[in-house]
């Protein structure tokens, strides 16, 4: 690691002014990605601005309408929050898979999306739930849907003088359920070869009123399988329809070959994961899904 300045921000406004005043600085939360990058000299910031003491970034609250996850809240704290497990179960599933106990005790919700790894586990779940990123900038704040947040591997739409305040997740409606699964060679402490989140909303008659399928490690950013979703919306679901949607999702994937898997293997495995997650979500939603408000 090259030498750098360590600056701890006590408030949002202090963090924003430090961001403006320092060139080539990086925001430091849990550090489970940034410190590894700095050791490898892939990141060489002149300053690290620690955001863990900022009150707004430590919010973890469910107000009925939405879940508010401050950007610096550690993953372990989020998955231990009962409302997350009960009402945002797909997010609970995805976050439980990230790293190890040690990594989840430090690593944060904000870090997992700001690092913008195409294979990250939480983004597919956040895309399924229609989450939004609350971003603070110079005297301004903007709220972006998660679809518009990622730009490419390691790249988000945030500018150098902006910082992520929180992730806002709308409460899923009654008769809805989601499921996230990933494929890794090793069960724990591994990076997804493929990850799929599926989320279904049914009406009283069992008709699907909304379908979301989001994929990780299948494109430069996490992506939704829009055509596959359209094939399910408005239909009374059955196994054939889910199978077709899974095949369509695989066609919408744009995977690459790398050290973890070949393009062909990824395309095959994403179909399997889409079918399994859709089936699980359908069964859970049919059984009543999440608690209503």
């Amino acid at each position, binding site marked *: 690691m090259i030498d*750098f300045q360590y600056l*701890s921000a006590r408030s949002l406004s202090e963090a924003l002014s430090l961001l403006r005043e320092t060139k080539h600085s990086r925001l430091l939360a849990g*550090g489970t990605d940034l410190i590894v990058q700095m*050791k490898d000299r892939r990141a060489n910031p002149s300053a690290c601005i620690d955001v863990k003491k900022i009150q707004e970034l430590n919010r973890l609250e469910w107000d009925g309408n939405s879940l508010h996850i401050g950007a610096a809240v550690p993953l372990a704290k989020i998955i231990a929050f009962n409302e997350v497990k009960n009402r945002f179960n797909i997010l609970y599933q995805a976050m439980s898979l990230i790293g*190890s*106990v*040690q990594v989840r005790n430090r690593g944060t919700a904000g870090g997992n999306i700001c690092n913008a790894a195409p294979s990250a586990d939480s983004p597919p779940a956040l895309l399924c739930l229609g989450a939004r990123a609350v971003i603070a900038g110079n005297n301004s704040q903007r709220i972006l849907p998660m679809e518009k947040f990622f730009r490419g591997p390691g790249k988000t739409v945030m500018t150098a003088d902006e910082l992520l305040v929180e992730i806002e997740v709308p409460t899923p409606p009654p008769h809805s359920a989601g499921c996230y699964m990933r494929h890794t060679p090793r069960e*724990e402490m591994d990076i997804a070869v493929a990850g799929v989140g599926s989320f279904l909303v049914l009406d009283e008659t069992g008709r699907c009123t909304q379908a979301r399928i989001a994929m990780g490690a299948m494109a430069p950013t996490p992506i939704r399988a829009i055509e596959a979703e359209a094939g399910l919306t408005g239909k009374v679901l059955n196994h054939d329809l889910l199978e077709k949607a899974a095949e369509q999702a695989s066609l919408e994937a744009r995977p690459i070959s790398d050290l973890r898997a070949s393009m062909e293997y990824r395309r095959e495995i994403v179909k399997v994961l889409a079918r399994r997650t859709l089936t699980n979500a359908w069964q859970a939603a049919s059984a009543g899904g999440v608690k209503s408000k």
Partner: protein
Amino acid sequence: MKKLIALTVNGQVHEVAVEPRQTLLDALRYDLGLTGTKEGCGTGNCGSCTVIMDGKAINSCLVLAIDSEGNNITTIEGLAQDGQLHPLQQAFIDESAIQCGFCAPGMLLSAKALIDVNHHPTEIEIRQAIAGNICRCTGYDKIVRTILKQTATGKEQCHA
């Protein structure tokens, strides 16, 4: 530039001068001489450097020392009390859950962090708790069995 910080390790406050880039692991080993905490991969994958910070297991190789001021840190040196090994440490020895010993400090601290909050964990809970600790000798089974045996109902002394 070095900055003077106060690190609370095993109940004792130490003043240490650290550079911002210094990890907690390096401060423990090189400044405080607490070499029980090991460095394996240095990237958060192996868990050899596990310590307990404010009740939670963390990788000390991924935490800056300067960012650890004000936290309570427990290292493997802090487990034994009055010359008596912690019951978990003794159990690891008695059950041969240690071979080369390199992973043992981290493994023990991950296990302790678990049983401090979950007195009678299931086998699955134990396996998940130590998933971030790699052992290249034992094949894990003896470690898991030892923790399971030690936390079975009736063995209350373990989380004293």
